[in-house]
């Protein structure tokens, strides 16, 4: 027991003496030398500090020089020490030595090598845009993201003249819906800083295709275009968009006209004027007035309305209508249906106007389309 006590006392005194002597020795000979290495990280506790000299940086423990490095940087500030500048920490000093250069940090944040060359870095947001053609070009923009909190998003829709026609707000993740009231080309602004500041083009239109002896006009046309054209289609949508309350359309060389008043809530509006005979009707006032129909796309339907019928030949007007297919809706000078107004609950239709002289038979396909450019 006594021996054990004496050994302990002796060991304690030796350790104390060793610690005191070690702190007096120069580099590398103490009890706790800083290993010399070119690529390592240290946590140094105690009175360590670094001083930058003209050609090297010295790491001191108290007054004793413990190691030398090429140059010293502050890892937290990312700048090199000036000559004669000291770097010290309160509790612990974190030191990275990479390629002989020392990086000092007091909070343990490691130095990072590599510049930022990418600029903004945001989480990915998935954007899906859907337009429902059957309704009035109802558009839904869906945002999917793995954001930690939701972010507000504004969507604004401007028409060709820069007027705001629709706006909606929502969140990311989430969705935003709006509807396009009339055919046209729209600019859509998706704004959710800093994730989005984007402009898109949304085209909402009625595409008229598959024309047989038919032509589309944006304004009056009084010419006799027979043999090539028996059906004149006047697109009135732009007049209603400009705010006119009524429009008069002149259809033949005599200037016979039809006056239409602005429809409420129409997506697109057309006047159809048809001639039934290839070489008769020398009196100019009878041309293109044998069947006159108005075709209006509302938000959800297509409505055909008879405005005028005339002439000596028999006529037949057919349309395609879901789910019935080709339907005879109007006859003139013969037995058959006499529906002077017909509604199609669909976004597209084909119109046929036929007579006993089949060389004047005309056809046109109308399709409502909404797409992103």
């Amino acid at each position, binding site marked *: 027991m006594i021996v054990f006590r004496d050994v302990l006392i002796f060991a304690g005194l030796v350790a104390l003496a060793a610690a005191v002597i070690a702190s007096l020795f120069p580099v590398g000979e103490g009890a706790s030398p800083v290993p010399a290495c070119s690529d390592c990280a*240290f946590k140094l506790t105690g009175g360590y500090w670094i001083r930058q000299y003209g050609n090297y940086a010295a790491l001191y423990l108290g007054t004793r020089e413990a190691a030398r490095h090429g140059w010293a940087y502050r890892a937290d500030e990312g700048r090199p020490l000036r000559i004669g500048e000291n770097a010290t920490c309160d509790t612990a000093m974190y030191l990275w030595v990479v390629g002989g250069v020392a990086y000092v940090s007091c909070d343990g944040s490691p130095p990072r090598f590599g510049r*930022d060359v*990418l600029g903004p870095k945001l989480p990915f947001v998935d954007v899906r845009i859907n337009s429902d053609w059957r309704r009035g070009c109802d558009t839904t923009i869906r945002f999917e993201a793995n954001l930690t909190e939701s972010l507000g998003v504004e969507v604004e829709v401007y028409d060709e003249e820069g007027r705001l026609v629709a706006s909606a707000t929502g969140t990311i993740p989430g969705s935003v819906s709006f509807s396009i009231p009339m055919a046209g080309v729209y600019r859509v602004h998706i704004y959710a800083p800093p994730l989005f500041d984007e402009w898109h083009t949304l085209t909402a239109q009625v595409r008229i295709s598959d024309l047989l002896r038919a032509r589309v006009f944006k304004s009056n046309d009084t010419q006799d275009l027979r043999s090539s054209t028996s059906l004149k289609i006047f697109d009135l949508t732009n007049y209603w968009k400009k705010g006119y309350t009524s429009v008069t359309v002149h259809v033949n060389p005599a200037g016979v006209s039809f006056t239409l008043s602005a429809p409420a809530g129409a997506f697109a509006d057309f006047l159809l004027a048809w001639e039934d005979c290839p070489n008769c009707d020398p009196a100019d006032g009878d041309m293109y007035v044998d069947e006159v129909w108005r075709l209006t796309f509302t938000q959800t339907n297509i409505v055909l309305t008879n405005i005028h019928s005339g002439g000596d030949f028999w006529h037949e007007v057919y349309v395609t209508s879901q789910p019935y297919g080709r339907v005879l809706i109007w006859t003139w000078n013969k037995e058959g249906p006499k529906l002077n107004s017909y509604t199609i609950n669909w976004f597209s239709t084909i119109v046929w106007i036929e007579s006993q002289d089949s060389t004047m038979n005309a056809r046109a396909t109308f399709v409502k389309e909404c797409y992103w450019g």
Partner: protein
Amino acid sequence: MWSLAYGLIAMAVVAFVVLYAAAHAPNFTTVNLADQLYGAKKWIAEYLPSFPRVDVTSRFRIFVNVVRVVRANATAYDYDTRQWTTFPVYLPVGYRLERAGENVIYQIYLNVTRCRYTALPWGEPATLYEIELRHSLDQLPWLDVYAAVPHNLTQYYSWLHSYYTAWRRPPAVGLTPRVGADEAFMELVKAEHILVYNATSDSAKLYVAAPAAALYVLLVDYPLKLPLTCPEQIASALSESQRSDTPVIGPPSPR
């Protein structure tokens, strides 16, 4: 009694010295930047096929770890229905990738800015790619560029089509299902390339001359491999009739 007191005091002194020495001994680990860099690139290479694909340029500018793609239509022979079919594919044309190791930030930005047909000095037709390259580390340790020349483009697209039918999402040329999975359909040839640094900006230009028949070029910053295509060239190649060649009946097994 006294001996016990001496003993306790001595033990306290020893314990203090040992603990003090242990607490003040420099605590060190090695820093291996090369390993960290390799780990960062390997991580990107592993997740590259699942990174989002964006075809809107403004989104490519802000999102990170995304692939910029151009949507195109490819013609394939469907071995199930035994007829020709057209399906959408994505053509990768840019990358914005980042992965940080503990001490290394690895960032690479690639963007095909231009590409066109050209002729090499000895008259061989080639596709010249101009690729914008930004890199977070000043010196690329080594950059290899290969051109992937398909043995039979129809067969390759028919193989991609099997992924389209399985996933119902457009596959990406060179990336689906992972980089290098198409080695049975492609021959990798070394492509001539030159890297032009710009003293006033971070952005360097990489010019690559690939054989005209190449479907994509493969940039290798080992172990990361990044395929880049030239959409204009592929579009013109697709418009030429791919249907003239006879398909091999019997599905090539997707691996």
